[in-house]
């Protein structure tokens, strides 16, 4: 994988000797114009990506009256909107539930998926390709395909509807996308490392834990982040399983009902939106590199 954090010169200028010849000046001028053009487009694009956040932020801090006017800049700053949302009954519960779902879900996914990914990458056995086919199929499968029997299973047989367990427990039994991603990465680790460890008398499991895991840290971090975000953002799952019990709602699901209860107050709705977005964005700043590497892992190695 290329190191993405290093800028590369892609636009190769015509090969010329440096110096202040007329040709050299012309090159510098086209280079400069090029620079201006590229950055002008980049600034325009950045506006498209950033302005929605700015509007959400500004509206979140407006008075209720102003949120519906043409005036885009707050007349007065209402930081207490954030507090009002935070103190809305239930909001803290949604937070805790989302953290539980995302945290526990991620941990279980990693625990269960790493050995499987390792086995699929390294062990030879009958039907390995078929297994891989199944992994990819489940990965591509819309969750709605199996939701009806799954719901009946959790609700009617295990009586777990109204909780988040139907969403968390399956993660103890692997997640296809995580297996896929981890396996793609594990394939890039030369198998000599494991062989060496085994010569030293390590079992496969110990080799995995001692040798492979430390080397696979970036991939594991990426998978963990993806899974965390998947859970954090999930709306369909909580809507199916947790909707009937407000004590089990997550942020994504609660946000919708918040909008229902405050449909008139766009300022509070935007404040809530902001508070739901914030953790994800903050996490991104801490883990930017792992993220971008993870995304490339999905496509580039394919």
């Amino acid at each position, binding site marked *: 994988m290329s190191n993405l954090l290093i800028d590369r010169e892609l636009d190769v200028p015509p090969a010329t000797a440096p110096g202040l010849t007329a040709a050299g000046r012309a090159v510098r001028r086209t280079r400069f114009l090029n620079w201006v053009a590229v950055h002008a487009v*980049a600034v325009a694009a*950045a506006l498209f*990506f950033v302005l929605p956040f700015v509007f959400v932020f500004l509206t979140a801090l407006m008075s209720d009256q102003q949120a519906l006017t043409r005036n885009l800049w707050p007349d007065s700053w209402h930081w207490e909107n954030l507090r009002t949302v935070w103190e809305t009954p239930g909001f803290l519960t949604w937070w805790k539930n989302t953290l539980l779902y995302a945290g526990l879900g991620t941990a279980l996914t990693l625990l269960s998926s790493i050995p499987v990914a390792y086995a699929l990458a390294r062990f030879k056995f009958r039907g390995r390709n078929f297994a891989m086919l199944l992994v990819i199929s489940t990965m591509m499968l*819309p969750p709605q395909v199996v939701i009806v*029997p799954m719901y*009946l299973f959790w609700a009617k047989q295990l009586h777990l509807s109204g909780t988040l367990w139907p969403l968390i427990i399956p993660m103890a*039994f692997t997640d296809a996308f995580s297996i896929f991603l981890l396996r793609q990465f594990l394939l890039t680790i030369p198998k000599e490392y494991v062989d060496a460890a085994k010569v030293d008398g390590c079992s496969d499991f110990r080799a995995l834990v001692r040798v492979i895991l430390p080397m696979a840290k970036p991939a594991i971090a990426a998978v963990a982040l993806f899974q965390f975000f998947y859970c954090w953002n999930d709306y369909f799952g909580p809507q199916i399983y947790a909707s009937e019990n407000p004590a089990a709602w997550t942020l994504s699901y609660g946000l919708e009902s918040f*909008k229902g209860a405050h449909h008139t107050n766009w300022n509070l709705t*935007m404040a809530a939106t902001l508070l739901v977005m914030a953790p994800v964005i903050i996490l991104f700043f801490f883990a930017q590199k792992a993220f971008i590497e993870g995304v490339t892992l999905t496509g580039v190695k394919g």
Partner: protein
Amino acid sequence: MTATTIAPARRPALSEGLRRKRRQERLRNLAFLSPWLIGVSVFFLYPLVSTVYFSFMKYDGFTAPTWVGLKNWTYVFTDYPFFWPALRNTLWLVIVMVTLRVLFGLGIGLLITKVKTGAGFFRTAFYLPYLAPPVAATMAFAFLLNPGTGPVNNILGSLGLPQPGWFNDPHWSKPALTLLALWGIGDLMVIFMASLLDVPLEQYEAASLDGAGWWQRFKFVTMPNIQPIVLFAVITGVIQTMQYYTQPLVAGKVASGVIGGSGQQFEPGYPEKSTLTLPQLVYHLGFQRFDTGGACVIALVLFGLAMVFTAFLMRRGSGFLATDD
């Protein structure tokens, strides 16, 4: 499905030791794979078989299921008023949204590789919206694009431009969703960026020496190199469209004003079925009407479509199944 059936050891005369080793290996494989074997059986194969079973049943969640043959299938295909509009919307989204997303993602990916000043800032700015939770992002766009009071129409109005009804107008609701999808282009941007950076520099240099201009370099050097990634982006885009659920649903709910505990009933696909997608139909039939059979029919249609594109993806990108030997 070509199972490479290479036995873990060589053929000739198995000694006692070798046999034990093979047995151990089999046990080890089983141990490593067991979480997945359970998971895929209980959470994929069993419900899939069960979905097929229920698609021939009448079951409302209360009374025992009864066999109704193909009734659910004919209802969905001929009488269910939401089915064909949902399929048409999906086709629209595949043609317009997926295409625009790939083009835009490629454009932004190209742009980010050319930016020299403030590259870190731009990369973050372009990537960040992708991370916004779909419900929150949709809510934000429903506010921004609110026809009467939203900032976008305010600005358009003061510039004397037409102010579309966005999520409230059946002709504009899918374009508004497309706008939202373009906003979250971060995933494609990174994939394209990485693949663009992987194009060997020498090829550009050689092309430049041959006097190739910008477009020719793009056409003859960049495109052939990133072609597999474009294909990957298109097919995963199509598969994502099959799963498109949260954004159209939340947009419809917010725009129609029927959200949360209000007493009016939500008109699925508001406005005028223009935002219906197949996953929403599974919810509508299965969890609002409690027509389990009909919901399972839709689920199987969805399954079929997703598998067709997955098969296509795996044929073209056989690297998916690549092994180390």
